[in-house]
């Protein structure tokens, strides 16, 4: 029972964080929300009993990909402009 509740919470968090990535105009916040999405999906892998994949996803998806996004934002603009 408790397992089902955690499962539903994680899946809800996945959808919410994915919508947040689309919603934010501040690109740094969007990158952090994308990292949160990766962290939650690694938690989902752990619940589905694949701890090996979970460690890889947490290190590469949540860590290195977010670092590359942040470096790209540092060299360009932080805020998204409205489409003309």
């Amino acid at each position: 029972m408790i397992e089902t509740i955690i499962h539903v919470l994680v899946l809800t968090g996945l959808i919410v964080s994915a919508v947040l990535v689309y919603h934010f105009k501040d690109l740094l916040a969007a990158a952090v929300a994308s990292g949160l999405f990766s962290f939650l999906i690694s938690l989902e892998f752990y619940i589905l009993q694949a701890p090996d994949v979970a460690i890889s996803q947490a290190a590469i998806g949540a860590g290195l990909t977010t670092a590359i996004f942040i470096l790209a934002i540092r060299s360009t603009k932080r805020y998204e402009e409205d489409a003309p």
Partner: protein
Amino acid sequence: MRMSKIVRFAADVLFGAIVIFGLYVIMHGHLTPGGGFQGGAIVATGAALVIVAHSYEEVIGMIKKAVLMAQESAGLVMFAGVALIAIGLGTTFFFNFLANSGSLFGMTVPFGPNPGELNTGGVLPLMNIAVGIEVWGGLAIVILYMLSGIGKKEEA
């Protein structure tokens, strides 16, 4: 965009803890989930944290490109070398010549339920260490080249 002093200090403090945890995952690769690749990726995450938090000049002073490239090559040479030693001993490529030998990582695995003995596995921990060193260098150098592409022309 220069990061604030809080971010830079937190990155410096967390770097040690992340590296220790990654080395733990590498060393226990033959007992617990994880191994060379996962542990190396965790250590590279620590390096990425430092690279993201500091400015270009500070990172160039802290992390040397040549060291990371040497690390990458050393990992590959160690992986192939351990596999080739087995041929030198008159057995097949990748033969586990250290298992149950009583020397380094050569203890016999205890029977029955047990928490896991670190001193087992033969050449498997050596292979994990080699892969860990290589992935550490490889993934850190990807982030470092990304920073080099930015160079000094950062937006204020």
